[in-house]
């Protein structure tokens, strides 16, 4: 579903948010706190009206100079930062609220399916005040889904929860997209959440949408500040192939080639995201034989960017796939690195995301 937007949001400075994305899976709106992420989400929902804006969702125009669809006329589910459940209704009545207001023909999911997906069976007759923070957000998600939205908007749904509750809720959100096949636009300022969930990014900086597109591409684009952060990273999509019982190693096929991840056996065929911190990647001129590092790939140097007088960001192409490495200027000088040079990338450690 194509979403074309042009929002002019008048705040202390004028925010110009233009983007054109194909929202199929999870798209994250990413930017520092206060950059206008929530305003953008509210504008998409129609909760805020900004003159001169335009919004096209699929083949429907939701807003332009002549049209403004009221929030209740937009087929959108909205999960707020705090769950905002209806305190006077039970969990079940909360979930049914939007369901009852959806035409039978437009209903995409049964209540049973939603309730079981979010595992709310035992909570149905409770009032929201008796739920924990994580439970409340699960109910809020179920309630939004029950109205069969075409698009689900989530405004930092995990930010009010502690880490344990976050970890508990994340799999539900991942499943949502897979099981319900519903496009999600997700607002967050957490690197972890975004690396784990997002397939696409809408990256906001300096009051504009700097770029939008596939996350692994945006994270490694040298013209964006994302690649120049201290915690710059690359994201690799991989699939579990085999397991070496004797050494307890998982072999994964990825865009880069075969990846080896130590530890417990992953389910074969499972899709996994690998997060490579730029600081954990080093560069050698020859393939090291006598090293403890397992993941070594031939790479081509694509770009070099000095961050300061000591550090350098190197954009490598491994199997044509971009990966960032952070090294010292001195090392770059020693190795005489330059664009187009063939090298080897050694990946010291990797974070496995669901």
């Amino acid at each position, binding site marked *: 579903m194509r979403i074309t937007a042009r929002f002019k949001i008048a705040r202390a400075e004028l925010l110009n948010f233009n983007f054109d994305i194909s929202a199929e899976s999870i798209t994250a709106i990413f930017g520092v706190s206060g950059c206008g992420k929530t305003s953008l989400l509210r504008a998409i929902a129609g909760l805020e009206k900004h003159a001169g804006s335009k919004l096209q969702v699929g083949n429907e125009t939701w807003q332009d100079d002549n049209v403004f669809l009221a929030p209740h006329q937009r087929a959108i589910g909205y999960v707020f930062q705090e769950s905002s459940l209806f305190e006077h209704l039970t969990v079940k009545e909360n979930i049914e*609220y939007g369901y009852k*207001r959806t035409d039978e023909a437009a209903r995409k999911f049964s209540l049973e399916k939603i309730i079981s997906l979010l595992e709310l069976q035992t909570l149905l007759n409770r009032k929201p005040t008796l739920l924990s923070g994580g439970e409340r957000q699960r109910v809020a998600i179920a309630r939004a889904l029950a109205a069969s939205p075409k698009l689900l908007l989530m405004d930092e749904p995990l930010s009010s929860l502690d880490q344990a509750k976050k970890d508990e809720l994340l799999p539900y959100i991942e499943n949502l997209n897979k099981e319900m096949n519903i496009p999600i636009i997700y607002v967050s300022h957490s690197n972890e959440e975004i690396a784990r969930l997002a397939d696409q990014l809408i990256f906001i900086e300096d009051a504009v949408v700097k770029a939008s597109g596939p996350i692994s591409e945006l994270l490694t684009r040298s013209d964006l500040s994302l690649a120049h952060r201290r915690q710059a990273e690359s994201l690799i999509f991989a699939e579990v192939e085999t397991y070496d019982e004797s050494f307890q190693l998982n072999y994964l096929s990825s865009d880069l080639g075969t990846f080896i991840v130590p530890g417990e056996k992953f389910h074969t065929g499972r899709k996994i995201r690998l997060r490579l911190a730029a600081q954990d990647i080093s560069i050698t001129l020859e393939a090291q034989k006598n090293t403890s590092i397992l993941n070594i790939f031939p790479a081509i140097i694509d770009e070099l960017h000095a961050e300061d007088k000591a550090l350098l960001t190197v954009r490598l192409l491994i199997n044509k796939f971009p990966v960032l490495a952070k090294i010292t200027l001195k090392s770059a000088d020693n190795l005489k690195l330059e664009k187009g040079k063939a090298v080897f990338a050694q990946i010291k450690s990797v974070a496995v995301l669901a």
Partner: protein
Amino acid sequence: MFSPADLTAFFLTLKLAFVTTLILLILGTPLAWFLARSRWRFKFFLEALVALPLVLPPTVLGFYLLLMLGNNGPLGYFMQSIGAEPLAFSFTGLVIGSVFYSIPFVVQPLQDAFNNIGQRPLEAAAMLGASPLDRFITVALPLARQGFLTATVLGFAHTLGEFGVVLMIGGNIPGETKVLSIAIYEHVEALEYANAHLLSASLVLLSFLMLIAVYALNGRFKVIRL
């Protein structure tokens, strides 16, 4: 116990309070909603107007109502021209007076209750496909139910104790305008202290019981603000 005349006054008072509260709830709900939701610049003007009966001597309110409702007043003249009974010195006139007299006691708790709901539950309802009227009925009203309880009891109790306005526009026609407070006043004038006692004590008891009910059911409610 009560003399037949006192009983009549007692039931007339209850009837007046009931009718007044009902009208105030019907008219006050949209007004309170508007005051709670609107971002109109001159909203404070309306709020001050609503609060006015709190500070005005009831006789002042009654005096102007008398001018409005009397045969020479605009409303009185209008009633005459359509061949209806004049409003001054009638039960209907009393109801009109009481509505003005008790307006802040109903509108302010409702406005507070609507304010306390906040924007969020209504936005959530909108995103679930509820139209503005739908979300008012299914979300705002139930969430403001404590405010309605407060408004109902305060409006009712305050109307029970009305004196000055009635004195000005009602007089003391038994069964029509002679309410409890007037009856008490007359007993005192006639030095019938025992009768005055009985009526006064029952009014105290009734009002106290209603307020106890409100405070017991509403932990955190504000009676009135200025």
